[in-house]
């Protein structure tokens, strides 16, 4: 008997929750704000769905009601991806160690 591919995806999902659980507990509390902004950026990988929707033209038409939602979603996700990664980078650049030789 064949296993429904859904079960495989569910397995990936459940295991990823556990991976997330252990990885996030090991994040140092001082980096919790960058953690939130970076999770924000990566959850915008939802853009892949938006791209598929935007490029799925029916009968050669670029703008259909469904591609319209796709284009909108690309816009929103792109703001998040660039904004999220860049603001994280900006924050992380500020975390510096004590300077050894102080004048």
């Amino acid at each position: 008997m064949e296993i429904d591919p859904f079960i495989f995806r569910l397995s990936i999902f459940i295991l990823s929750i556990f991976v997330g659980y252990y990885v996030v507990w090991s994040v140092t509390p001082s980096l919790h704000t960058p953690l939130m902004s970076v999770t924000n950026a990566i959850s915008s990988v939802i853009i892949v769905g938006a791209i598929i929707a935007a490029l799925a033209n029916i009968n050669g038409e670029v703008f259909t009601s469904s591609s319209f939602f796709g284009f909108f979603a690309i816009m929103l996700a792109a703001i998040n991806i660039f904004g999220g990664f860049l603001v994280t980078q900006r924050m992380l650049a500020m975390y510096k160690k004590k300077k050894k030789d102080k004048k």
Partner: protein
Amino acid sequence: MSANLSAVFYLISGVLFILALRGLSSPETSRQGNLFGIIGMIIAISVTFLSVGNFSSGFIYVIVILLIGGAIGAFIAYKIPMTAMPELVAGFHSLVGLAAVFVAIAAFINPGAFNLGLPGNIKLASLIEMSIGAAVGAITFSGSVIAFLKLQGIMSGAPITFKGQHLLNALILISIIVLAYMLCLTQSSNLFWILIAISFLIGFLIIIPIGGADMPVVISMLNSYSGWAAAGIGFTLENTALIITGALVGSSGAILSYIMCKGMNRSFFNVILGGFGGTDQVSTNQNKEQKPVKSGNADDAAFLMKNASSVIIVPGYGMAVAQAQHALREMVDTLKKNGIKVSYAIHPVAGRMPGHMNVLLAEANVPYDEVFELEEINNDFANADVAFVIGANDVTNPVAKTDPQSPIYGMPVLDVEKCKSVLFVKRSLSPGYAGIDNDLFYKENTLMLFADAKKMTEDITKNL
């Protein structure tokens, strides 16, 4: 590109996202982690383009819109002040939520593009996943918008409660489930629209009763929701990268909510049910007899610190409001030049979001190895000469350890009172968010410095 090959690439980008979070375990590896995240995202987007394989006129529009969105995002990322991070993150959450809703709508209108069947005859499993993604996405969107408005001060931070609120919320939640069930039976698009509309409504209703002081929990919770919404869409699209990411973000947000709740010693449900963090509890303190308070000026404070050998700084959100972090760092620099050991103690719920105070101190060029979490530093207060409390209040209140009647009893607090002397910068004796008096104000060894945090810090530096 074959479906199998693209699935492998999606898996790779999922792994890179895990490494991105893993990098945050220490500041040294964090920048590399962020880079992994960016590479993962580039892989996911490129693979999507290749697997769709449609480079007709629509492709140009996609690139243009992608770049416009990217430019807006980059502009915001560089302009935003660090004090406004909570608003920014709330705003970003709302965008993820809305994007999830839009993708779900697109998939519902044109299921053929995603291999989900035909309009009016969508595969049952896909329809369920789609409804979950759309509903959670909508809740994330409207909830985050309210959180944003509250943080930004456009909407009052006071909880908005009304009679029958919980009953109404429960009814709406039940009707969402019923609607989703009906949708699966009938495939009716009207039901799908209603489902999304009431999900927007419930997101709004869930967040309005939560007070301003509970915002750290709310932001973390919405972070978690945005992850679950992404995962729901990931199942619909049968996309591994999205499923992995959704699970990661979902559990990350859940853990942060847990940490925040623990930092306030409150249960998650207690926060969600709301009504806390308002001003209604303040009145009970009005009738108390006036207790003697020692107050001093910048000169006294400078004298105390100059003669100390170790000082612990306890910053709170008030410091950020007064924009005193740079002035504070200058004061600390002067102290260090005089050979005084200085460290910072950060309470888990200091600031308006998890880790907010650390970012603000990092921005003011405070080295991160001078900044300590509550568990790391709490034993050091007994050996320190001076505790300098700036903009914090409830998190130092010893009543949390002594009075079981107190609303904050059991909350972990910084043992500031064990210091030889305590300097408390505050504008007045008013109670903090929890609405209770702080016993620390009236202790023998406490010197109150009534002034604006920034001005007081600058004056102390001059007197050192």
